[in-house]
């Protein structure tokens, strides 16, 4: 919402400076977005009289001018072809800054003649493109007066952001009222001039769709002359970025801004019969914005016998608008249903000043006065004879009451506001006291404040207990108007004035902030970073091809993506990590090692959103003089995953790996990690060669862990540890197994061969024998308990180990 200072002063009597006004607007919730003071860069420039303009003795094109800018005659050298004696021009004194160039003007000598300033062109002042000559002012322009003031540019433009609840502040008068209520001056009284009219309107209204348009007024003014509007009106509209069009159109724009009252003017002679307000009937409208819209049954249309003439409350039609030829005008002043306006405007992507105001709600009580004021201005600017007002429908009820309870206000704010102050500020906003006692005060809500005590229906949680809902709804009915009024009182008082109070603490030392599951996420993040992986935050969406490549069975698609490559929710974090890795490789950043903790999307339901920790190592191990670099392999990913699982406190003996990882992994070099037979914790392995090729990545290995699948560690008191005094013994076994035999089978069998003595089993060696079978070197740690083991006992354990490995895996000693 833009307005100028002088436009504000039309409604506000104030001595406040521009800075005060801006600060107050910010404080009370009308946030200042921009202040454009066009006079500031022009402050030094004066209206000057060129008394003489003689040819320059040393240059054909230059003239030596004697200039009076109000402080004596000054000699100025000027190169403009139009510089001549007797003209009025704009003079820039030495020391001033030329807006177009930013240069400081100095006293200079031009071809031997001193020049004590400059006569300016429009372009030099950044006021236009004209640079053919210097600005030529009217003969009566007063010498010595600041040019900005003379040209009407000394009126700062203020733009504020109006929040959706404050439709009333989409008018200069509403802003003035708020500022006056905040103590910045007095709201000037305003009333519409009386319109004397005898004749009936030649156009009448008919409302067929009262839900969309409950009430409409109108009147004709016959015999108008629709020329350009006067300079002041053009200047006001231009200053806020509205292009002056013609007096009739400018008048409607003026009242839209001035009173927040959108109006529409029809050329009455172009109308075929009376006007009907009805649903659209799948018809087209050539609108004032040059576009054509197809209007349907959900659009509120103003039509005559020929069809739709405008999309009510949103945009007018081109065919019946007022032109220079208009002699009879019909002025429309209606109220439309805000919800239908909002939906219709959004559906057609039309943003207009009218829509903006109707969808926030206009002041219904102002309609007759606004129509009278507009009529009076039409008559004043264009002449003509107004008709009586014609109307249809009934004005929607605006009467509402709201109660402010002082104790509730204090309870909400955390400190008391003096009752008199609270009531006075509401009265300045137009609230009228109905009753008042010690505890509370009730008000009539002004018609323009449809955000107060609006009483709209709740949108309760599905399945809420009806009794609980009834209580809550009763509470809201009481508390919403209270909160509405509290907000008004507090914002006018200044929210900054409320003394901050730190939250009282129930416990000086608070309990743990995070749940066990949340702590696990933090721990996983730290663990992965300590393993040399860099944490990334990648987008939750990717392109459909990548999503499909990474195993999405059913793609979760974005209906309105901002880009085609961001139209599908990622089925695994690994998908976007792989893209991030590719981007790094493409940048010449070799061998990225990345991880991310974030959501993966397997469906729209809540259980389709899985929290994953995923990591990816690309390329080769780092260059190291002690060991040659090698390509990343599946076990690099397994190392990461195992370190992660260990750090999360999983009982590692209970995990198993099966060779059934998803298809984006190398089928022979990947695994699924399970706890027990069913619970899948995650996957690891080499990325599938097809994916590597498609993404143009070197060999890469990744892992995924489903963090929410990791069971909560049991919180048990630790038993006292068993720390035997006797030294453990180590025995090595070399087993030979068939090539397809999983090592895990051998190790598990060995581990389980003796429950009490075997304290550890490690695979220290693995190689393939010439016949293709595999040799596994296994070291077993035997921990004697109370007594030293005899040779016979050791032999017995060894035999059991060999037997177990043989039975489970067909392993034989080499």
């Amino acid at each position, binding site marked *: 919402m833009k307005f100028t200072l002088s436009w504000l002063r039309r409604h506000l009597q104030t001595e406040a400076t521009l800075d005060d006004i801006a600060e107050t607007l910010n404080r009370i919730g009308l946030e200042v977005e921009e202040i454009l003071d066009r006079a500031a860069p022009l402050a030094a420039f004066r209206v000057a009289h060129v008394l003489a303009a003689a040819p320059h003795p040393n240059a054909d094109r230059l003239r030596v001018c004697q200039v009076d800018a109000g402080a004596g005659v000054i000699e100025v050298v000027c190169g403009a072809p139009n510089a001549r004696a007797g003209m009025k021009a704009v003079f820039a004194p030495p020391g001033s800054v030329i807006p177009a160039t930013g240069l400081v003007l100095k006293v200079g000598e031009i071809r031997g003649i001193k020049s004590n300033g400059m006569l300016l062109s429009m372009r030099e002042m950044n006021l236009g493109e004209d640079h053919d000559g210097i600005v030529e002012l009217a003969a009566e322009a007063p010498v010595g007066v600041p040019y900005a003031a003379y040209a009407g540019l000394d009126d700062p433009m203020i733009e504020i952001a109006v929040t959706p609840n404050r439709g009333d502040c989409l008018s200069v008068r509403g802003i003035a009222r708020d500022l006056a209520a905040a103590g910045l001056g007095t709201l000037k009284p305003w009333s519409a001039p009386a319109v004397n009219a005898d004749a009936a309107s030649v156009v009448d209204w008919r409302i067929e769709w009262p839900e969309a348009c409950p009430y409409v007024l109108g009147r004709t003014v016959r015999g108008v002359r629709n020329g350009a509007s006067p300079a002041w009106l053009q200047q006001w509209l231009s200053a806020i970025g509205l292009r002056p069009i013609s007096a009739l159109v400018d008048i409607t724009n003026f009242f839209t801004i001035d009173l927040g009252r959108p109006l529409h003017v029809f050329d009455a002679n172009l109308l075929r019969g009376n006007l009907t307000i009805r649903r659209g009937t799948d018809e087209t409208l050539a609108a004032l914005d040059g576009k054509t819209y197809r209007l349907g049954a959900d659009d509120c249309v103003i039509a005559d016998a020929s069809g739709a003439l405008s999309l009510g409350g949103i945009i007018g039609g081109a065919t019946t608008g007022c032109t220079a030829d208009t002699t009879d005008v019909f002025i429309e002043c209606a109220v439309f249903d805000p919800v239908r306006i*909002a939906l219709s405007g959004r559906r057609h992507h039309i943003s207009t000043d009218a829509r903006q105001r109707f969808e926030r709600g206009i002041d219904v009580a102002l309609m007759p006065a606004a129509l009278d004021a507009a009529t009076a201005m039409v008559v004043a600017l264009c002449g003509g004879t107004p008709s009586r007002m014609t109307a249809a429908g009934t004005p929607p009820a605006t009467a509402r009451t709201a109660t402010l309870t002082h104790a509730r206000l204090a309870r909400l704010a955390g400190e008391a506001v003096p009752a008199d102050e609270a009531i006075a500020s509401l009265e300045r906003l137009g609230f009228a006291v109905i009753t008042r006692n010690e505890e509370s005060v009730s008000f009539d809500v002004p018609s323009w404040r449809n955000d107060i005590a609006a009483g709209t229906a709740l949108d309760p*949680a599905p399945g809420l207990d009806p009794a609980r809902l009834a209580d809550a709804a009763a509470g809201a009915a009481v508390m919403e108007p209270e909160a509405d009024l509290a*907000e008004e009182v507090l914002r006018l008082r200044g929210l900054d004035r*409320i003394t901050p109070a730190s939250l009282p603490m129930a416990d000086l030392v608070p309990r743990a902030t995070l749940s066990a599951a949340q702590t696990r996420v933090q721990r996983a993040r730290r663990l*992965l970073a*300590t393993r040399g992986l860099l944490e990334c935050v990648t*987008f939750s969406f990717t392109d459909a091809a990548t999503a499909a490549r990474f195993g999405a069975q059913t793609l979760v698609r974005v209906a309105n*993506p901002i880009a085609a490559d961001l139209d599908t929710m990622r089925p695994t974090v690994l998908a976007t990590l792989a893209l991030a890795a590719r981007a790094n490789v493409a940048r010449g950043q070799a061998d990225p090692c990345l991880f991310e903790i974030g959501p993966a999307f397997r469906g729209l339901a809540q259980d389709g959103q899985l929290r994953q920790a995923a990591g990816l190592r690309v390329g080769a191990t*780092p260059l190291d003089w002690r060991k040659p670099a090698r390509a990343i392999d599946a076990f690099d990913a397994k190392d990461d995953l195992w370190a992660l699982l260990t750090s999360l406190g999983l009982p590692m003996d209970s995990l198993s790996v099966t060779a059934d990882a998803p298809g984006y992994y190398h089928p022979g070099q990947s695994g699924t990690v399970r706890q027990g037979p069913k619970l899948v914790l995650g996957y690891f392995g080499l990325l599938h060669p097809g994916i590597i090729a498609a993404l143009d990545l070197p060999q890469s290995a990744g892992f995924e862990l489903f963090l929410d699948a990791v069971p909560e560690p049991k919180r048990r008191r630790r038993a006292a540890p068993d720390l035997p005094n006797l030294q453990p013994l180590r025995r090595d076994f070399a087993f030979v197994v068939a090539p397809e035999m999983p090592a895990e089978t051998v190790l598990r069998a060995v581990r389980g061969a003796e429950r009490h003595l075997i304290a550890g089993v490690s695979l220290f060696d693995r190689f393939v024998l010439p016949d293709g079978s595999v040799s596994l070197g296994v070291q077993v740690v035997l921990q004697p308990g109370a007594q030293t083991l005899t040779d016979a006992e050791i032999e017995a354990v060894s035999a059991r180990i060999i037997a177990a490995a043989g039975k489970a895996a067909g392993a034989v000693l080499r």
Partner: protein
Amino acid sequence: MTESRGPIMQNDIDALRERVRADLAAANDLRAWDAVRVGVLGKAGALTGLLKALGNATPEERRSRGASLNALKQELTEAIEARRRVLDAEALAARLEAERQDMTLPAAPARAGLIHPISRTIEEIIAIFGAMGFSVGEGFDIESDWYNFGALNIPAHHPARADQDTFYLVDDAVPPRLLRTQTSDVQIHSLLSATPPFRMIAPGRTYRADHDATHSPMFHQCEGIAIGEAVTLAQLKGCLIDFLRAFFDDPALKVRFRASYFPFTEPSMEVDIGWNRRTGEIGQGGDWLEILGSGMVHPRVLANCGVDPRQWQGFAFGMGIERLTMLKHGMADLRPFYESDLRWLRHYGFSALAPAMLHEGL
């Protein structure tokens, strides 16, 4: 008697001593040293022989000569051991010298893993609000229309919906599910599931159909909500001031509250902090920087969740995590947060071993 069996003269002993000392000095390795040792003290050694010969001497001779020989034996034994120690030391020194390596060779390359700045900021937020008794709640990235809008007093026609360019999902549900535009959905989850009084924050991913230098289609917010019978606007201000001063590590940070509007709070406030527009310095200077939105939870929001606003009231706030991060660390550009450029991650990342802990300082 083929040789004198008379008393062995003292000069024999002296000669032996001198010879052994000379031999020891000449023994430059353990082998030579051992030959000397065996030649003196071994079974057939010179001194051993003399001691054996003592048996044939007269008791008197035995006494005097025995004492001399034993003294010699002790002396030579010590000399031999001393020489051994010298040789050992020399051998060790030689070995150590031989084992000398270039200790300027590089250590194994450590791949630096680091925590993303967004995670770091979230950790700091959790640490500070945790100290004020808040727990951490969670919502869903994919939400129903009701959790994101309806429950929060944003009906379908509300202009606030047009301000928030919402991503909708291809969905059979009517209205379709969406990617949450704000973490405020967590307010609703907590109001429905938690029993007041409670305090909760909720950091998380949010989505809006907006992409330019200062907007990302995905970004992070942190929601906060405190509900009680007497949770006041004054406490909202205190809580946010306490947070901002701790987060920016500036106990004098200037904080300003301006009236504003959000559909789900009333009264609503924008919160500004002092900064210097020219230098970008936080806390000082005469300019103001909008940093978060806040307000008292709207009675309709409470009622929509079955909470009676006559009994319970409270405050809520929401802040942009990227914005806080950029301000705290003087980062100019939003886009690199999501581009995973190794160089950027290494430059701005945080050590995993220095998590955000109030007692270690943020």
